[in-house]
């Protein structure tokens, strides 16, 4: 899609955030960005797997009206990307800056700030849309670049948008303060709240919004997206790797893409800037980077399942076997094999395996293990619950994991 304008829009967004600094600097070439940013969807239609939401939002593009909205869902499912893309498509580069206010958890957001910043912005006069005969280039058009009217391309509806990203980290008080503000200015302002945990948004606020749930990305479409990116970057994937990437990332596309990038670098595909020194690259801004696959080295090695699992911090089956065997060796015995379990756990801790990962993988195994009967499983789940809580509270991992192992083992030896 129109990359030239997106770059401008991005600069505009950056300039808005840093009001004092003018964007006089040259934009960093796209290829030197982390891939998650490079492949952030730039239009609604590029957002994968959120079909329902996208369908509804695309309709609002035509109708030029918008309700207050609440986007919620797990990390890396496209919430921020969607609202930014929507805003861009509504206003285009010229108006993005004056019509959209983006606040997020990295901004100070106590009550006073919400009052001040949001009110100030909401109160401002609507900036005028470019007059009807301003032309822009449309790179999407069939048959190459075409001149189209700005207002035809961007509807420029007569309201402003306040995006409160990561709204779940706003205090209750700040949220309450927002209620009035939302109503007072609703004629000219739409709010979009974005969060991971919808339950952290107070009811009166949530009930004022149309809610859009962003699903954890399912295999099909996420896999396609990963494969597309791999193709554009010239990374060769062994069969099954793209599925594995999405599976390990737990439906979080951002994570899947980061893993992909790291895997690509690891197998030696690190020549994206080959033959194109930085200075050269700067002239290429206007070039459609998505078409630019020529720098893909033909001899790049293949990313394998093992590479991917290594990178994702998945604990190898062998290590998990050791742990599970040590724990289960108490079956039909009188005593818990303390030394055996303690040794495996100590080893795992020294290897640096994340406790959360250990707990997750152990759970998968024990709960589907036929050697453990149902009554025992019911007791064991409780221990997993306790351990998870402890880890989140910041308890020591070594003690927590060792305790978990011993307790599971204890359940088995009673039986």
């Amino acid at each position, binding site marked *: 899609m129109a990359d030239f304008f997106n770059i401008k829009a991005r600069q505009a967004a950056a300039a808005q955030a840093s009001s004092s600094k003018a964007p006089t600097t040259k934009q960093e070439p796209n290829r030197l960005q982390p891939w998650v940013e490079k492949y952030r969807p730039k239009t609604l239609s590029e957002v994968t797997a959120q079909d329902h939401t996208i369908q509804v939002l695309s309709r609002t593009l035509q109708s030029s009206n918008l309700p207050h909205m609440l986007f919620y869902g797990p990390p890396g499912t496209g919430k921020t990307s969607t609202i930014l893309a929507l805003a861009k498509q509504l206003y285009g580069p010229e108006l993005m800056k004056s019509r959209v206010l983006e606040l997020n958890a990295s901004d100070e957001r106590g009550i006073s700030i919400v009052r001040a910043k949001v009110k100030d912005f909401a109160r401002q006069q609507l900036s005028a849309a470019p007059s009807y005969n301003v032309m822009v280039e449309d790179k999407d058009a069939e048959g190459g670049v075409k001149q189209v009217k700005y207002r035809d391309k961007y509807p420029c509806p007569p309201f402003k948008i306040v995006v409160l990203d*990561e709204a779940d980290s706003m205090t209750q008080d700040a949220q309450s303060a927002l209620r009035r503000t939302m109503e007072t200015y609703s004629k000219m302002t739409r709010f979009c709240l974005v969060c991971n945990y919808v339950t952290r948004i107070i009811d009166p606020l949530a009930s004022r919004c149309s809610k859009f749930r962003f699903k954890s990305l399912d295999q099909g479409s996420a896999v396609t997206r990963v494969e597309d990116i791999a193709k554009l970057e010239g990374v060769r994937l062994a069969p099954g790797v793209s599925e594995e990437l999405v599976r390990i990332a737990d439906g979080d596309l951002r994570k899947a893409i980061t*893993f992909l990038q790291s895997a690509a*670098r690891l197998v030696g595909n690190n020549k994206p800037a080959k033959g194109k020194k930085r200075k050269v690259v700067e002239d290429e801004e206007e070039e459609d980077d998505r078409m630019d696959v020529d720098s893909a080295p033909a001899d790049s090695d293949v990313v394998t399942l093992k590479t991917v699992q290594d990178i*994702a911090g998945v604990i190898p089956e062998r290590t998990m076997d050791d742990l599970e065997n040590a724990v289960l060796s108490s079956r039909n015995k009188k005593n818990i094999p303390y030394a055996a379990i303690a040794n495996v756990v100590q080893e795992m801790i020294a290897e640096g395996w994340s406790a959360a990962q250990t707990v997750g993988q152990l759970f998968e195994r024990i709960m589907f293990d036929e050697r453990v009967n149902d009554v025992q499983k019911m007791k064991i789940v409780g221990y997993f619950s306790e351990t998870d809580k*402890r880890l989140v509270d910041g308890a020591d991992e*070594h*003690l927590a994991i*060792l305790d978990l192992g011993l307790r599971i*083992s204890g359940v088995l030896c009673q039986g």
Partner: protein
Amino acid sequence: MALLVDKHRPRNLESLSYHPELSDRLRALAQSGDFPHLLVYGPSGAGKKTRIVATLKELYGPGVEKIKIDARVFQTTTNRKLEFNIVASVYHLEITPSDVGNYDRVVIQDLLKEVAQTQQVDLSAKQRFKVVVINEADHLTRDAQAALRRTMEKYSPNLRLILVANSTSNIIAPIRSRTLLVRVAAPTEGEICDVLRVVGKKEGWRDVEGLNARIAKESGRNLRRALLMYEAVHAQNENLTENTPIPPPDWEALISQIAQQIVQERSPARLLQVRSELYDLLSHCIDPTTIIKTLTWKLIPKTPEEIQPEVVKWAAFYEHRCRLGSKVIFHLEAFVAKYMRVYESHLMGLDFD
């Protein structure tokens, strides 16, 4: 004079002696230009920091080694002034936000924005972005972590983060989703021996293989500790043999002694005595987790096998309590009391509870 740990710290990826695959991976990332945010985790003394410094050097060249310390003052919303130290080179900064406790969010917000909005001063810099290394990232408050989220995306043209943590369990999912996880395993005992030999050679010390092996074992695969012990042994003895005793740190010796006392006599009087020793440890800034853990490991070999799991159960329980509660000493003492009770009831062959 510099400690051995610092004196012979490898300065670039080539000279890192263990985990060659990891070094390759970091080099590939550093050379690629589109370096992602990293979350580097692993047990302490595994060499996380050394590896990061080496990676920075790969990114920027020797300039990153010219560092200075900046004392900065931040202001909270309640107008409290916070003093905060920043270690910085032209290309990167290093901060430890947990130094300012619950105010870490303020510091992170202000500082990262400032960094993100200023360009790299050195125009010939190899990278457009600056790197901010955040130490003890697992101690960041939820608020501070939340504050990082969009910052990491929005400012990614000018800013990369390297978060350093002992574990990832405390890092919120949205942050984990924005970083590439890099696990640094502790070196094996064999690898520790290799390092000791090399360092010893540079110092001109006589190589005593058996002693090195013992140090490696004692250190619990913690390289920093191993080097400290190695230096201490050599400083305190003229003629080293395989059996030269390795002096443990004071606090560890005290904990050994406590363990001994607890097992010897399980009585209220003894508990009282132990309490003052625990206070002593705390007043020397030994953190409660280290105390409970070390105490547990010292107690276990002295404990009848049947009740070892029970001891771990309570150690884990009270360590968790230490985190949540405010009076650490209560929980430490409760653990000791619990141990005595479990031990007694085992001896008498009945359950008290």
